[in-house]
């Protein structure tokens, strides 16, 4: 494969060359197209209000100021209270970390069971679990809020965590199962004969080769849960709203002038963690999606 591309790169065939130019052109245009909004957001967030009123949307800032960032973080009004995004940011962090960890771990054990410890009816059970991937959020809003009320988790961050774990399980289970089926069953048999049981095999044999799929599951869950708005609106209390809900409130709060620079700064703050996760672990994401567990 690599040889082939190398050979292609070295070719002087004009048709290939033109093809190449077209491909790069399209890629660059697409990249610019997707980057411009983000660029505009950053530029706007470091402008002063005066600058914004007098300049164009895409003009560069005349002077750079972090005022808007400070305000967005610390004192912007979201509805009636004016404490900025900081509390909501931490709300989101407190919500995301446990839900990601728990849903990923349970998903790993589920996937291990569905691939290596099949029982009578486990395939059917797995199919039902997969249905969970296709249920639209809206459908479960009412029944879920009733359930949360019943178990005493309504309007709290724990309720949100619970919902995100439950809603994430079909996905994490699917990821791990599909990864673990590529581990040969004979390895499990060998471990059984070696005397290891369910958890010892999981810990000593399975987990050590699971890093790529953990990365996939964690990235997926982190972005899903961090970016979620609907569950956040529906199930959180006033002191447990996640940052997405707060951002919406901030943008919609109309007291006098619309402060675009604050809005933009707040939006970037809300988006930074997911961006960060992709930059740090993104290359493992693709690798993990296509990797089998055991090479050779």
């Amino acid at each position, binding site marked *: 494969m690599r040889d082939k591309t190398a050979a292609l790169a070295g070719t002087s065939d004009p048709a290939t060359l033109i093809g190449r130019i077209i491909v790069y052109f399209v890629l660059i245009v697409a990249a610019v197209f997707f980057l411009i909004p983000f660029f505009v957001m950053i530029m706007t967030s470091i402008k002063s209000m005066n600058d914004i009123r007098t300049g164009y949307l895409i003009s560069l800032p005349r002077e750079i100021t972090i005022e808007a960032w400070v305000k967005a973080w610390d004192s912007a009004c979201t509805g009636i209270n004016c404490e900025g995004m900081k509390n909501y940011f931490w709300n989101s962090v407190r919500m995301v970390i446990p839900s990601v960890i728990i849903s990923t771990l349970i998903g790993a054990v589920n996937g291990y069971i569905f691939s290596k410890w099949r029982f009578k009816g486990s395939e059917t059970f797995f199919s039902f679990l997969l249905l969970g991937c296709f249920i639209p959020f809206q459908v479960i809003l009412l029944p879920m809020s009733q359930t949360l009320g019943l178990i005493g988790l309504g309007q709290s961050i724990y309720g949100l965590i619970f919902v995100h774990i439950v809603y994430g399980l079909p996905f994490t289970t699917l990821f791990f199962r599909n990864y673990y089926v590529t581990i*040969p069953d*004979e*390895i499990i*048999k*060998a*471990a*059984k*004969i*070696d*005397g*290891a049981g369910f958890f*010892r095999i999981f810990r*000593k*044999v399975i987990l*050590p*080769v699971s890093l790529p799929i953990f990365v996939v599951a964690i990235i997926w869950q982190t972005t899903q849960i961090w970016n979620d708005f609907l569950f956040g609106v529906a199930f959180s209390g006033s002191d447990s709203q996640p940052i997405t809900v707060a951002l919406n409130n901030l943008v919609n709060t109309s007291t006098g002038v619309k402060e675009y620079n604050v809005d933009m700064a707040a939006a970037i703050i809300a988006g930074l963690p997911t961006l960060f996760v992709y930059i740090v672990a993104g290359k493992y994401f693709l690798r993990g999606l296509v990797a089998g*567990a*055991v*090479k*050779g």
Partner: protein
Amino acid sequence: MASLTVSNIRKKFGNQEVLKGVSLSVKSGEFLVLVGPSGCGKSTLLNLIAGLETINSGEIRIDDQVVNDIRPKDRDIAMVFQSYALYPSMNVRKNLSFGLETRGVPKAQIEETIRHVAQILQISELLNRKPSQLSGGQRQRVAMGRALARDPAIFLFDEPLSNLDAKLRVEMRTEIKELHQRIKTTIVYVTHDQIEAMTLADRIAVMKDGFIHQFDTPQQLYDNPANLFVAGFIGSPAMNFIPCRLVNQGNQTGVMLENKAGRSFFMPVEQHDLDVKKWLDQEVILGIRPERIASGFYEQEGNPMIHEIECIVEVLEPTGPDTLVFVIINDSKVTCRVSPHAVKAPGESMKLMIDMSKALLFDPGTGQRIENQTAGSTGCT
């Protein structure tokens, strides 16, 4: 060391019955080879012995203990898998020690065992490598080492050599045989390679379609196969099967063979068995191994069982020590093993000697042997 007895076991997957009543008994220290075509249930049988699958009916005993309901880890067996099944995240040392650690063997003793096993299998230099850094042959050794380290009562091998190249396979075959002669542990060894079976086994069980067709020593299987399947499966190149008619000529019973030119030759068969008489003037299948049709035999003068036949040479396949000559007899292709200097060119006519003393007769309907089989070989079904 332990003996192993398998009595009439059956195994179903869904409604497909894979094992249909299999019985075997392996003596303590014996090397048993299970051989048969792909999909005949060899691995399934091995998994049942190991306890990795549950049997539907029947009984498995190790020494005098019924182990049907005993878990794999408590059966005192070790298994080597076709894919080696090394733990990918552990280095060789860890792979060898995993089973011992799980069983709570003291550290010092584990160290000692690993050193010993690594030395036997010559993998001492590989102890710190991961399985992905090993060649096929090295992985195979480590897989055997993992089994050896446990020092079990019974070894189970599931086609351990089938992923190796031809040369390495022959080398490892010899090593396994030497190993067995040294440690003398009971071994059940699965393969679909009949040469491996012949060279390694004390006794061979030939399986097909969930049955054991014959369970005997290699030489008995070779000389006295119970049916067409076993006869054709054991031996390479395979035994010739020639359809022919059993007739009386003078006071002798024999078969008529006809060459391509339409000339007939009478070949007498051994008559120590009365059963043969029942088949007079009926179609039978003559089974004769390629090395029994040659340009000549030692002491053939006056041997009443050696007769001449003349055939046109069709194709030649030199193997080095012998050349395989293909001729047509009774409209079927027949392989003969001829010494190279006596070979004629394709298209030419050639005189061949057939040694009928080892010829076998089969029932064309059932495929079973017609003659009484000497020595205690048994067809199981």
